[in-house]
């Protein structure tokens, strides 16, 4: 990813030097042409084509915004209910993510969506302890995180 991005920038600069005019428009043209070349040669480079990763990052961001809006309305409903019939609880969540930044990102995303809050990470970085405002069903809460954020983060780091 980082190498392909650097190569793309290098090709864009090279295009500017070959064209002999140094402005932003020419840089963008060179960048697009470099992207086409890298896309054509993608099997020659290690990893996958880096635009796929950027699309995955944008997808993760949009998903986070949508989850944030949805979860806020859920909390609003809980707050405005006259009856207190919610079931708070703490559950264990075994994550498959390995790297430090992935675990941090997942924890922050879980914490920023209202209704769930990461309380602790185990010493071996394999288990998150999550406090939930309202969990009628633990397995459903686990699977919703697994299919949602964790899958999206894996898409980014694949």
């Amino acid at each position, binding site marked *: 990813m980082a190498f392909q991005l650097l190569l793309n920038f290098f090709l864009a600069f090279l295009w500017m030097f070959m064209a002999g005019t140094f402005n932003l428009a020419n840089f963008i043209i060179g960048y697009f042409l470099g992207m086409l070349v890298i896309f054509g040669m993608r099997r020659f480079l290690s990893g996958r084509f880096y635009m796929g990763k950027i699309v995955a990052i944008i997808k993760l961001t949009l998903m986070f915004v949508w989850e944030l809006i949805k979860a806020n309305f859920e909390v609003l409903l809980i707050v405005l209910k006259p009856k207190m019939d919610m079931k708070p609880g703490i559950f264990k969540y075994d994550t498959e993510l390995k790297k430090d930044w992935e*675990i941090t990102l997942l924890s922050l995303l879980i914490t920023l969506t209202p209704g769930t809050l990461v309380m602790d*990470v185990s010493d071996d970085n394999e288990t998150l302890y999550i406090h939930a405002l309202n969990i009628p069903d633990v397995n459903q809460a686990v699977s919703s995180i697994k299919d949602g954020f964790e899958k999206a983060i894996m898409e980014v780091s694949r």
Partner: protein
Amino acid sequence: MKKTNDVILQTVTKIISFIIILFSIHLFFAGHYTPGGGFIGGLMTAAALVLLLLSYDIKTMNKILPFDYKRMTAIGLLIAVLTAAGALLFNVPFFTHAYDYFDIPLLGETSLHTAVLFDIGVYLVVIGITMTIIQTIGESE
């Protein structure tokens, strides 16, 4: 007392500390025309170092940045005094500043002022004193 797992705090610190230091440099150079300057820039840099101290420990911190902060304070004072004393070489009173406009590539026409040198002294003194205070308090168990 078992040590807790600080993976979230440490990972966030790795990113945030760079942003704070860059902002402190911006504040340092903004001091001539807009709010900012050596003092607030130095405090902001020290704040980034304190954040590192909070999320790691003093041993790791000394490995990352092997500075002697007492010496840094002394160097800062020396720079400030020499900037003020430099005016005596030109037969003008102590602390007289000089400035001129220079054509620097990338920046265009910029005024270079000897007050910047004095401010660098202030900046180093503030970082040195803040870190000395915090480290001596932290080490005395």
